[in-house]
């Protein structure tokens, strides 16, 4: 990754291939962090867990997309087969870098494969003003920055009430393979039931319940993986 502050002077001629951008972000991602505002929508498509950041040990909510590292079972090869696309995928190849003086700096990853002269989205329009595309990206990144502290607060709240428990997934696939995933945590339904009235904010209640209900989507992940394994097995047999 090679982040560079986005500027009209230096990046006026850049184009982004938005399909490549999505592929770069999503195709090999098995766990994608979510913001508080995304939880309700994401819960309809993905199982949502809490994971720990390897550098800080801090918990963050994340959608599980695959059963092993670098596996995204929702990725079709060209698109995400889900009703909701997480912000982390949509913002590629743009990032917000926190400044020491406070505030954030919009940056572009110069190493991104999505930077392509033939790309469908320009940074500036023909008149030299910000394109509608970059306007959307700025709004998205600004919203992500604004939601970050709310997400931290939600996680803190869940930890404070001991709602977070280790979630060990022991899955046996149709092909007989055993899949063990550890390092994931989930909202405990019993604990949430005990403390629901202690949580005054309805948005917080909904977000936590959405995470809880989203765990039903683990079955969807397994189904997707079994389907892929079946297809692979047929292909192997056909080729042998």
């Amino acid at each position, binding site marked *: 990754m090679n982040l560079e502050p986005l500027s009209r002077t230096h990046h006026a001629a850049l184009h982004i291939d938005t399909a490549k951008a999505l592929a770069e972000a999503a195709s090999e991602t098995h766990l994608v962090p979510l913001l508080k505002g995304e939880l309700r929508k994401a819960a309809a498509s993905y199982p949502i867990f809490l994971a720990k950041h*390897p550098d*800080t*040990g*801090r*918990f963050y909510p994340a959608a599980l997309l695959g059963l092993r590292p670098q596996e995204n079972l929702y990725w079709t090869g060209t698109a995400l087969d889900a009703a909701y696309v997480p912000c982390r995928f949509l913002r590629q190849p743009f990032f917000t870098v926190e400044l020491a003086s406070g505030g954030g700096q919009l940056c572009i990853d110069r190493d991104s494969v999505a930077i392509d002269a033939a790309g469908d989205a320009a940074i500036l329009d023909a008149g030299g003003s910000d394109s509608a595309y970059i306007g959307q990206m700025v709004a998205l990144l600004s919203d992500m920055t604004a939601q970050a502290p709310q997400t931290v607060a939600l996680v803190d709240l869940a930890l404070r009430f001991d709602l*977070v428990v280790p979630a060990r997934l022991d899955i046996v696939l149709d092909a007989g393979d055993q899949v063990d995933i550890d*390092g994931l*945590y989930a909202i405990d339904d019993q604990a949430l039931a005990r403390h629901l009235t202690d949580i005054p904010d309805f948005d917080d209640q909904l977000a936590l319940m959405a995470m809880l209900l989203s765990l039903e989507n683990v079955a969807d992940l397994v189904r997707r993986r079994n389907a892929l394994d079946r297809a692979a097995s047929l292909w192997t047999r056909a080729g042998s």
Partner: protein
Amino acid sequence: MTAFLRSVCIVGGGTAGWLTAAVLAARHRTADGPTLAITLVESERIGIVGVGEGTWPTMRNTLRKIGVSETAFLRACQASFKQGAKFSRWRTGADDDFYYHPLVLPEGFPALDLAPFWHEAVATGADVPSFSDAVCFQDHLCERHLAPKLMTSPEYGGIANYAYHLDAGRFADFMKAHCIDTLGVRHVVDDVTRVNQAENGDIASVSTVAHGDVSADLFVDCSGFASLLLGQTLGVPFADRSDVLFADRALAVQVPYDDPDAPIASQTNSTAQRHGWIWDIGLRERRGVGYVYSSRHAAGHDPMEDLAAYVGPRIADLPVRELTIRSGHRETFWKRNCVAIGLSAGFLEPLEASAIVLIELSADYVASSFPATRAAMDIVAERFNAMTRYRWDRIVDFLKLHYMLSERTDTGFWIDNRDPATIPQSLRDQLELWKHNPPGEQDFDSSHEMFPAASYQYVLYGMGFRTDPHFMQPALRDRQGAQEAFRRNAQSKSRWGAALPGNRELLTKLQTLDLPRI
């Protein structure tokens, strides 16, 4: 109506006093508050000895039960992670002579014992790694100064088993603050001027200068070497063990790091010297170094020379503290309504960090078996005495094991340590059995064992002792299981050697970040 025992007076602060207070107070409380009135009387004039900068892994559970955060403990006590001990120059005295006593059990132990398989490999004459390196991945971590856990590991949880190195003075202060602020322990800063006995011989109260008489149902003697209550007042004699363990002096010095980013050793380094050994403990901001020696054997030599040779020229600018070690313990530890915990109960050279763990174990027993009545106290005391004496004997045996297997002939200190007359019969019996069978759980059948069979294997085979393989043939049956265990150990080295952060790296991070609670 039955008169229940409800009050405890602990005489003396320091590690023993405050840790005991915390263990007792944390156990004896309900949601409404303390169920035991605990008072700790501490003199301002008498400093703490602060011996013991190494703990056992038991400390993790002790701290958890007391209710403190591991991150807060690490910060406040300048603590670091300890993954065992490295013994250098104990066997032959050569520069490349070393072995580890790690804290992780041998792979598969005790269901599977790899010792016979390792012996078999050694017998082939092939280039076989040391016993601990072959059966456990922790040597590999220690040699690379790695931490036993990740930033994502929960408090008190880790990838490899671990204990702590800590600043004993800061630890006592940390415990004190927790006891007073959170656990409701009453703190009396005053000098004890007299110990008052009741007609039946029990201790009725201790008189203080400014706070009058402090009475209690149970007194805990944490007065250090003075043993003010158990030794001086109740007259319990001292059992001298210097016939087995010869060290009677220590020179201690705190050595700053040359480079503030220097690696922090992941283990206690114990380096044998002419007349004893040097401990070297890496904390975050300094090292604690000390030379434990036998003054009788060192007569005519200046022990400072050995310490200076180890520390280097800068020792000239560092204050060196001299301590007298009286190896041994009280004949009994709980008499009438007084129990001694810490140095007042006894002390042995800190070769296997036994000081603090004995405080934990004793405090835990007193807390969990706290007698409801005075009549029950004598029964609890009798059990405590039998258990604690057993523990001291096992520690003496285990420490002696380190010495008696040495092949060093350079001084009388090492030669005398092999004299059978100085080796307890219990240890000689074990050695006789281990000539043909590796140490196993069958050799340690008490529920109050101090060291597991695996610890004996690590020291025994690290020191060059070999169990005769001819009698072990039946133990070689599960060859496939052994191969898998050796392979798992190799995988653990490779995986965790690459994934775990450096000891200093993680400890530095923990100055600003908190370990997750789960």
